[in-house]
């Protein structure tokens, strides 16, 4: 069942169009991650869903009812949307204790209000800190209070605005697990905004990638990884690129010419005269001899159980990085499985190499 739906949503600030025809649906209990760079519009979508921003075109529906439709002059304020929201900088009310911060999110006549708030804090493993004020807590503890506040009223939709970005890496991992666990346990649908790929792999049922106010890919993490729709998504999912390539055919096989060498590639690549190629370090196979791109080792580093080798290839200005189980020799031939090469039409204005 669809809980939240955005239909051709547009948002304009003065002369700047921030969102272009955004269409999105979130099912009950689903975890959707909105991902994109700075200024891509991801936070605006979240704030529009929350009712903190009003859209300038299209409409937003929640639980089957329209909550924001500028054409019909319809707008339901945030407090009436019955949502929970977790903020990047916690946004705890500094003059209230942790317990009161959580209890404040429950209507005044709720039976056992304080008890429920305390129980929520216990579930977030910070019950002992209930009487402290937020400023006396660490960042991770404050965010736990923020999550407790967002969940205590048992909303069916939880909005998370980069909730981990202010936290240390190990605290992020703990909180990711906690949020995923709580969302599953309570059947709460979640919409999380992030620019951290880890959030996608650890949390998402589906991912929406935003670029310049448009959704460029809406898919499961698996699809996102195996079939990135744009160079941005390819980079985001760990590919290096874009290497300049041209379409080519050899012995009846279609492929590309990269650094002057023919590499087989999927025939469904776009028919553009110039292409950019992306591939992941772990997909590159290096052999001492044989077919492939002749490469000379520029340098290599040991990183987290493997060697990252940086290869210089004639005809390419940027180095190619491969992930090796053993320390590589000084020369090699590099091949890449054809389904692991991602090709896009070359855009001189926007493309750049990112390893």
């Amino acid at each position: 069942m669809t809980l939240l739906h955005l239909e051709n949503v547009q948002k304009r600030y003065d002369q700047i169009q921030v969102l272009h025809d955004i269409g999105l649906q979130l099912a009950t209990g689903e975890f959707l991650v909105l991902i994109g760079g700075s200024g891509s519009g991801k936070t605006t979508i979240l704030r529009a869903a929350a009712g903190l921003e009003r859209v300038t075109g299209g409409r937003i529906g929640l639980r089957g009812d329209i909550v924001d439709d500028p054409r019909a002059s319809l707008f339901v304020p945030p407090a009436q949307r019955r949502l929970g929201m977790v903020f990047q900088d916690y946004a705890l009310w500094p003059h209230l204790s942790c317990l009161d911060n959580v209890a404040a999110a429950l209507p005044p006549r709720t039976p056992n209000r304080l008890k429920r708030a305390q129980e929520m804090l216990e579930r977030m493993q910070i019950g002992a800190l209930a009487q402290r004020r937020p400023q006396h807590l660490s960042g991770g503890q404050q965010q736990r209070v923020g999550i407790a506040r967002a969940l205590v009223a048992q909303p069916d939709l939880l909005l998370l605005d980069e909730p981990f970005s202010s936290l240390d890496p190990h605290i992020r991992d703990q909180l990711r697990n906690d949020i995923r666990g709580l969302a599953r346990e309570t059947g709460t649908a979640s919409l999380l905004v992030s620019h951290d790929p880890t959030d996608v792999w650890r949390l998402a049922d589906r991912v929406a990638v935003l670029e310049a106010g448009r959704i460029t890919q809406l898919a499961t993490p698996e699809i996102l990884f195996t079939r990135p729709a744009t160079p941005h998504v390819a980079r985001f999912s760990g590919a290096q690129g874009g290497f300049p390539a041209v379409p080519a055919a050899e012995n009846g096989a279609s492929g590309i010419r990269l650094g002057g060498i023919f590499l087989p590639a999927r025939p469904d690549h776009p028919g553009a005269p110039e292409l950019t190629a992306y591939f992941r370090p772990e997909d590159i196979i290096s052999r001492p001899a044989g077919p492939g791109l002749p490469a000379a080792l520029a340098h290599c580093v040991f990183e987290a159980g493997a060697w990252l080798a940086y290869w210089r290839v004639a005809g390419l200005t940027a180095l190619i990085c491969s992930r090796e189980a053993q320390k590589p020799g000084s020369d090699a031939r590099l091949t890449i499985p054809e389904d692991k090469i991602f090709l896009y039409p070359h855009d001189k204005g926007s493309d750049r190499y990112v390893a």
Partner: protein
Amino acid sequence: MNVLARAARLRTLSGAPILLLFGLLFVYPLLRFLALPLFPSLGPLGAVGVAAQQSSLSAQAILNTLQLALITAAVSVPAGILFAFLLECRTWSGNRVLTATLWLIFVLPSYLIATGFQILLGAFPRGSLIQHLFFSAPGIVLLLALKGLPFCVLAARTGWRAIGGEIGDAARIHIHDAWRRRMLLLRLLLPTAGAGFVIVFVEVLQDFGIAATLGAQIHLPLIIYAIYKQLTSMPIDFTAAARLSWWLVLLAGLAVALHLMILLRYTSASIHGRQREVARPACHGAEALAATLGLAALVVLGLAVPVLTLLAEAALPLKGAFLPHGVLTSLGNSAAYAGIAATLAVGLAAGLTARAGRSGRLRHALDVITLGNMAVPGLVLGAAYVIAFNNEWAPLYGTPLLLVVGYVATHTPMLVRFLQPALGQLHINLADAGRVHGLGFPRRLRRIHIPLLTKPLLWGWCLAFSQILFELPVSELLYPAGRTPLGVQLLGLDQNLNYVTEARLAICGILVCLAAIGVAAWLAADDSGPAPQERP
């Protein structure tokens, strides 16, 4: 280890001149003056004099001052909070006008605002209700509230900035009942309102311009003017002045302590995390109408009445020259004093702020000093200088030097506060990066420091120049004979009801200020083109 210890010792020693300067300009004169009630022999005349005869008058002055300060603060704070709300939380076409109006009210001397109203309302029929209201305590409250408003808005903006961000969003989402949400936001605003209240309260205690014009005209005893009278009317009684100053300092000190307590207790509310910039909703309907009416009232009362009245008065025909020569000289005197003192004060403030940026202890000390300075009115510092620098080993009283020193001492703390945000952005790493990459001091100065600091320093200079040009309390007590400053001349004309000459002189002063600001704006003009290339 030895090297580290030596470096630490050098750092400590390098702070010594600052402490020495602080001791010489603030601690020694103030201690000596304020000690007079206990040790009258420290005074230049050694007189205890007539204070006892005037104790009932002093008590009345204390009571009046306290009442006026409390009422004015209570009036200013709600207005300040509402204007700050417009500036921080709403997109509104009037916001630029509002900002400019608040700045102009801040810069315009209180005694000129008072004079404008005095002239205008003096033209109403004698005994009319409006005259009756203005030439009494409500009139003084109106003027003081207008002058206090910019400070209050400044304080309230901090609070709205915090609430306008994620903390406010959290309330909008999680608290369903509107009244509970409003109560929570109101509670969040309380520290800000408290800070605004304290700031206006202290400003009222210390405002000499309104006390010396409208206050003197309606014979309403106020502490600040009573101190002045003790120091300038025969027989001069420094001890009584010091005793009254104690009241002023104690009241202001208590208020500042309260302000510090509020700041310490509620810091988290104002500096909570990183506030993400969110789009501000536009003003619509009734809100826009109320905002327009409020702004119109502020522009009319704070600017139009005083400035237009002065202009109209200045245009009235008068026999003889446009301005008598002696009167015009005061403008030249003050322009020279203001130019020198503003330059020295800006240099000192910039040096102190930059130095404090490298030392947490010094930064803390500077915060305490600048806040502590709020508790000491210029008039009290001026009186302290009369005693401290009027002896055989420091015979500075009556010289232009002491007047300039007085101006520098009273304006440096304000400039430190003004420059702190701008100089704070000049992170020490920027200079270190230049040093590491081989830029010598002259190049660092030319390529890094000067381009980044020109604008804030020039604006700081303009602020100090315009305030010193019209400065009154320190001028009244320290000006050298035959070199009357502008403020003293204007007050003299006001008290002699010579409004036409006063208005003409004031307009000339404002024009000099505008010219100085224009030159500074031209020098600080932001060229949005590419950064200048360094010559090879």
